[in-house]
């Protein structure tokens, strides 16, 4: 109990001190408000603008979640294929790595040219960004299964499918979830990047409008929303992880917060 409180209290105090310093600096107008708004003005615009932001938040969430889910389906399929079909891994692996090294910020405008200003390019960007972490960690998990377990099942006459179902997939779960968590933190950001390049609505468009109106406190408010959404997504995945792997004793320090 003591350790818990300590874990929470230290960062909270540190954070509050930082905010106070920031607020004081802003009060003394060291930087003009359009360069660095004060925390109080950010919170105020967050509260007052929340209702008008709601639609944009939903749009960005929709793009992020859709892209995320597509990425999950694709990466599970590809990871399992890489594991079970010989030679597939050798051909696909380099392609995956290369797809991840392409700078998204440069590719995004091209996507707009190819796919227009609707949801499609944003969802594709999210899928691209979220894709890599999942198959890699999932593949590691699948490969790292105890060989003796597989031999045991084989000696009992298990089919390939049964081997997957009873041994490989459960043991790959921890890797899968850690990949999911990494991808989740990128998903909201990916949708926002897609919107910057062009779009009608969404948090990214909201941020550009605020910036063009020289309302930097609104830009920060949007950033806060993005951070909150990403953390929420992370928490949901952690919850699913705990539920899915009750046999795994994961120490509490493993999670961000209890």
């Amino acid at each position, binding site marked *: 109990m003591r350790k818990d409180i300590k874990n929470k209290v230290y960062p909270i105090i540190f954070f509050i001190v930082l905010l106070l310093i920031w607020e004081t600096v802003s009060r003394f107008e060291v930087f003009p408000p359009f360069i660095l708004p004060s925390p109080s003005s950010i919170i105020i615009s967050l509260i007052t603008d929340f209702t008008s932001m709601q639609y944009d938040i939903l749009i960005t969430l929709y793009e992020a979640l859709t892209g995320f889910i597509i990425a999950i389906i694709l990466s599970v399929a590809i990871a399992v294929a890489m594991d079970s079909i010989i030679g597939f891994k050798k051909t696909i692996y380099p392609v995956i790595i290369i797809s991840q090294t392409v700078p998204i910020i440069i590719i995004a405008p091209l996507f*707009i040219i190819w796919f227009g200003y609707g949801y499609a390019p944003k969802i594709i960007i999210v899928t691209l960004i979220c894709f890599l972490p999942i198959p890699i960690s999932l593949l590691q998990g699948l490969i790292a299964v105890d060989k003796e377990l597989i031999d045991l099942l084989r000696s009992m006459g298990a089919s390939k499918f049964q081997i997957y179902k009873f041994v490989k997939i459960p043991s790959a779960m921890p890797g899968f979830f850690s990949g999911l968590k990494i991808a989740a933190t990128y998903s909201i950001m990916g949708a926002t990047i897609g919107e910057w390049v*062009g779009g*009608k609505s969404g948090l990214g468009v909201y941020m550009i*409008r605020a*910036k063009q109106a020289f309302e930097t406190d609104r830009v920060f408010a949007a950033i806060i929303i993005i951070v909150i959404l990403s953390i929420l997504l992370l928490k949901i995945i952690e919850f699913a992880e705990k539920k899915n792997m009750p046999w795994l004793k994961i120490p509490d320090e493993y999670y961000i917060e209890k």
Partner: protein
Amino acid sequence: MITKREKTVKTSIIVLLIVLVLILGLPACQKQTAGESGLQNITLVLDWVPNTNHTGIYIAKENGYYDDEGLEMEIIQPSEGGSADLIAAGKGEFGISYQEQVTYARTTDDPLPIVAIATIIQHNTSGFASPADRNIKTPADFEGKKYGGWGSPMEEAMLKGLMEKYGADYSQLEIVNIGASDFLTSIARDVDFAWIFYGWDGIKAGLEDIPINFILLQDVDPLLDFYTPLIIASENTIAESPDLIEKFLRATEKGYLFAINNPKEAAELFLLDNSELDQELVIASQKYLSGQYMGDSAKWGVMEKSIWDDFSNWMYENDLLQKRLESDMAFTNEFLPQ
């Protein structure tokens, strides 16, 4: 025999020395070569990608007019429209902006300390352009269409004001942010119309044989004949380095006068610095624009108070500005060469 401990100590010392050298060396590398050639470094931030609105500046650079004034000019491209916030933040001495951006920036709750010091073009050559088949002839036709812009509230204000003047329903207009997308690409498929400078995108459409309808803003309402683009400086620069501004404008005016009198050579000089641009477009655009820089004025760059007041009053009366613009603080002709 060297012990493990000694080895660790030795390695740590070497690493520390390397780090120290790097840290000390870094500022020396980054130091500007100010005074290396005896010239004063200045930075100009463009409003967009380089185009023929900026020719005079590039000519002044190429022909050495800035050097003659003891200035080392660096031209920077920002990521989106207008340089107002960068200049206000002191990231450059001069910037390219628009009267509507200056008007908006100076009337928000937290006004930006920027001032217009010269106008590049005397009359407003911008307007709303659309492919001919969308049948957009007046702002009334904006209803039910899609506008592609860069996300500035000034665009929304302008569209609202125009549509209401023509009795059209502003809520029936869809506004999409198309960022830095090319005009012709966007209107082909994604949007119906956009706000362009005739001298660039209008000419381009003509060269590509794409028929467009162009609504020239000054035709819609004489109060909309505002100055765009123009050159801005921060209030700080004005207070601290007035002679810098005079030198800069002297050289820049020379550049634009050269462009006015020699459009073809001007286009070629401009292309030297911007070889990735379409030659045909630059030459055709320069031919058009060279006659527009000075317009009917006796001097380049001069601005009149009535133009500033008319426009800001139009905006304010249409509820598009938070407060009236104090035009005397927003622009000045005092640094232009006499």
